[in-house]
């Protein structure tokens, strides 16, 4: 007996319980119609990605807001709102041609004026990582409604990698000009130019998107509706997948330890693609200001003391790849030819002995605090694993627990010895990697800055030159050099390139098509 029969038995109206009629009609090639049910957790505070860049906001808002470019899995630019673009040989002038007939959800046309207004005015105010790049724009011109020309103050190669919809979402100028962007009442309607528009948001329950009829790409969107359900409890999210109530999951929706079991479900495929742009890089942060962590031999010893392969398999259920250094293999300019640190308790002990850190009568060489990063259940287990691993070489870890706000505060204020950190690479080492190691970014109170306090003038110089170099060959050479120095110095102990499982209903097509995966517009997604 299922729910419907049970309801009938009790004499209840079964219509409301019969599930969602998909209403799918087969068109040429791709199927039209249908409702995509998926999960969002935690629930975002608002939907305007230009104003709030918390992860769930970006996932949901990607359907509402678009940007000039998209990126394939190798981070090569492909058309977004711009159908073509040109970079001048001196690397200073970028010219974009927009597709014609792009409209916002309120029916007004999107023009080059909206692009310039958003990128040079709004994002400069509201987008912490966007403004680092867009502050380099010296001049923005709109010779006609479909052409945008940006002139940079000096060459900055990653400019072309910063135009995805999580970094440069375009807002309507006619709604935001002259207002306080954060307090604009129109934020509630979240008016963008994406293939879906907001129909209803029942806070605490779900966000309901329907198709934007005036969308400019022919045929898109294929789906009629997308529903993001807020399901705060991990076990309930697992049930939602098992029962087929949702057709897609992303990021940490499914706890790592549930992945092996749920992967056996016949109606889902599991893919870890679509995180190439963010390329979440996980490491153990060692506060370089505190003895004995100021000695590179100690940090190298930690690198040798951890069986990272076992940790990846047992704690993260194989969802990731061992990191070899500061740059992820998914990011541009990765170089695998660097020094490697194998798992060896003996090498670790030898390094510690060499620096004169002898074990006391209780076998402990040093006692350090480990601040557990509370972003996932797996991190707590990983902390216990590390405590055991480092205990074997005489490094005693005292585990400290807190919530996300407490962690952020302590970590940003350098009030920690060791902690886990997960940092996005944002497609280019100049954007997502340099910030962790350059000494000009040692800033107390700021997360994702150079919190470890590592400082090396040579590293500073190489990162600086690589950011402004115009040829890819030159940049590769500089980044290869910097990778070799950093891997020798071990400012932080790199662990994994973290993967996230997307459970995707097998009927769905084109869900993961770009380097930002589930954050993409979903205009091309269809049932079959």
């Amino acid at each position, binding site marked *: 007996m299922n729910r419907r029969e049970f309801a009938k038995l009790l004499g209840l109206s079964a219509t409301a319980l019969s599930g969602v009629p998909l209403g799918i009609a087969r068109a040429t090639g791709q199927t039209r119609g249908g409702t995509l049910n998926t999960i969002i957790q935690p629930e975002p505070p608002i939907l305007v990605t230009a104003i709030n860049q918390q992860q769930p906001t970006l996932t949901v808002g990607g359907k509402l807001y678009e940007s000039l470019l998209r990126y394939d899995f190798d981070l090569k630019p492909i058309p977004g709102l711009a159908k073509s673009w040109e970079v001048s040989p001196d690397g200073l002038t970028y010219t974009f041609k927009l597709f014609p007939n792009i409209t916002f959800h309120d029916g007004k046309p999107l023009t080059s004026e909206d692009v310039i207004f958003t990128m040079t005015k709004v994002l400069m105010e509201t987008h912490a990582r966007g403004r680092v790049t867009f502050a380099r724009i010296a001049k923005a011109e709109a010779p006609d409604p479909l052409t945008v020309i940006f002139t940079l103050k000096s060459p900055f190669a990653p400019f072309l990698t910063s135009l995805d919809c999580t970094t440069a979402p375009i807002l309507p100028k006619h709604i935001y000009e002259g207002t306080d962007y954060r307090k604009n009442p129109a934020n509630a309607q979240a008016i963008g130019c994406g293939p879906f528009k907001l129909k209803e948001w029942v*806070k605490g329950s779900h966000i309901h998107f329907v198709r934007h009829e005036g969308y400019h790409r022919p045929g898109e969107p294929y789906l009629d509706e997308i529903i993001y359900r807020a399901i705060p409890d991990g076990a309930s999210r697992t049930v939602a997948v098992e029962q087929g109530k949702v057709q897609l999951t992303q990021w940490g929706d499914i706890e790592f330890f549930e992945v092996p079991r749920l992967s056996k479900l016949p109606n889902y495929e599991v893919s870890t693609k679509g995180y190439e742009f963010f390329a979440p890089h996980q490491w153990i942060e060692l506060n370089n200001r505190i003895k004995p962590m100021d000695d590179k031999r100690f940090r190298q010893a930690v690198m040798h003391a951890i069986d990272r392969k076992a940790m990846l398999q047992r704690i993260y259920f194989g969802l990731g790849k061992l990191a070899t250094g500061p740059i992820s293999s998914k990011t541009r300019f990765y170089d695998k030819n660097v020094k490697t640190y194998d798992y060896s308790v003996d090498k670790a002990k030898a390094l510690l002995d060499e620096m004169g850190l002898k074990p006391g009568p209780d076998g402990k060489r040093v006692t350090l605090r480990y601040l557990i990063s509370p972003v996932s259940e797996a991190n707590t287990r990983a902390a216990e694993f590390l405590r055991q691993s480092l205990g074997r070489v005489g490094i005693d870890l005292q585990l400290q627990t807190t919530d996300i706000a407490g962690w952020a505060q302590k970590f940003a204020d350098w009030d920690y010895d060791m902690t886990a950190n997960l940092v996005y690479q944002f497609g280019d080492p100049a954007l997502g990697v340099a910030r962790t190691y350059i000494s000009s970014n040692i800033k107390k109170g700021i997360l994702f800055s150079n919190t470890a306090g590592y400082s090396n003038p040579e590293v500073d110089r190489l990162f600086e030159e690589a950011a402004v170099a115009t040829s890819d060959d030159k940049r590769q050479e500089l980044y290869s050099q910097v990778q070799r120095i950093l891997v020798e110095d071990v400012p932080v102990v790199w662990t994994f390139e973290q993967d996230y499982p997307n459970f995707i209903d097998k009927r769905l097509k084109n869900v993961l098509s770009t380097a930002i995966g589930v954050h993409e517009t979903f205009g091309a997604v269809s049932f079959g």
Partner: protein
Amino acid sequence: MTAVSVDAKGDRVFAIALALAGWVIKFIAVVLVIATFNFILVHAAPGDPAQVIAGQSGASDEKLLAQLRAEYGLDKPYPIQLATYLKRVVTLDLGYSYRQQRTVASLILERLPATLLLTATAFSLALLSGIILGTLAGVRAGKWSDTVLTVVSLLLYATPVFWLGLMLVLLFSVQLDWLPAFGYVTIGVPMTALQRMVDIGWHLILPAVSLAAVYLAIYTRLMRSSVLDVTHQDFIKTAKAKGLKQGRIIIRHILRNAMLPIVTVAGMQAGALVGGAVVIETVFAWPGLGRLIYDALLQRDYPVLLGVFLVMSVIVIALNLLTDAIYRVIDPRVSVRAAS
């Protein structure tokens, strides 16, 4: 109308007004003390909303933190923040959540119905079944049916509420597929008002039963011992001697007297029930106040957190008053004593 009677009436009106004024002043004082205490507690936790937003955005800079802290008024010293907050409380202004871009009052009003529906259902369910089961156990004390009820209620009492919720989901949603596992209504299906009500009721069953379980156990055990107490008193023997039927004795004589401790405990626990809803609302994705508190706490959304705490304190004070009133209805001696 004589001058004397006007004076007497005036005196009485004055006395009542004085009592009311005293009560209002006490109420305001209690609320202000609670508000101050809440403020200190909430700000004692490490971290602030700006750091949380930075932490979940994967990037941060000085400008972002400064902007957010200024919006929340966190750039001012604590005493000034507290004074601003208390001034708002007095003027019944719950404040504005910059995070959610909404007034706190609208956020609470939006979530309150769901929580009231859930807790009221669970509370009635627990109270009603607790009284019935406890009475049954009490009048059959020592028999096997009493033993079964006592053991089951003990088990329920010892079960963590989230675990029970998950187990019920596993049984009724995953295995049997009879009841929805989460949410408060089927989303994306056009429904008439009646269908919608039925659908919400359908979603309500599992969370309400899970939330009710622990309280049901408490009331059953309490009622059982209370019934046992009353059964051995002289007036029951008298009733039996008069030749009254068993059913009539239970309803008219035992129940009415045995109810008093239940009402006291239930009154105190109605507040705790709202707290228990935090866990159940999370497990069942029920869009109520409990979830709002939990999210606000993790995000350090101070205005929302303080607003919900304040509203809940007021609800608890109101419920205590209601308990007093019910006490008088059930036990006439209370008002007699109060009057004399």
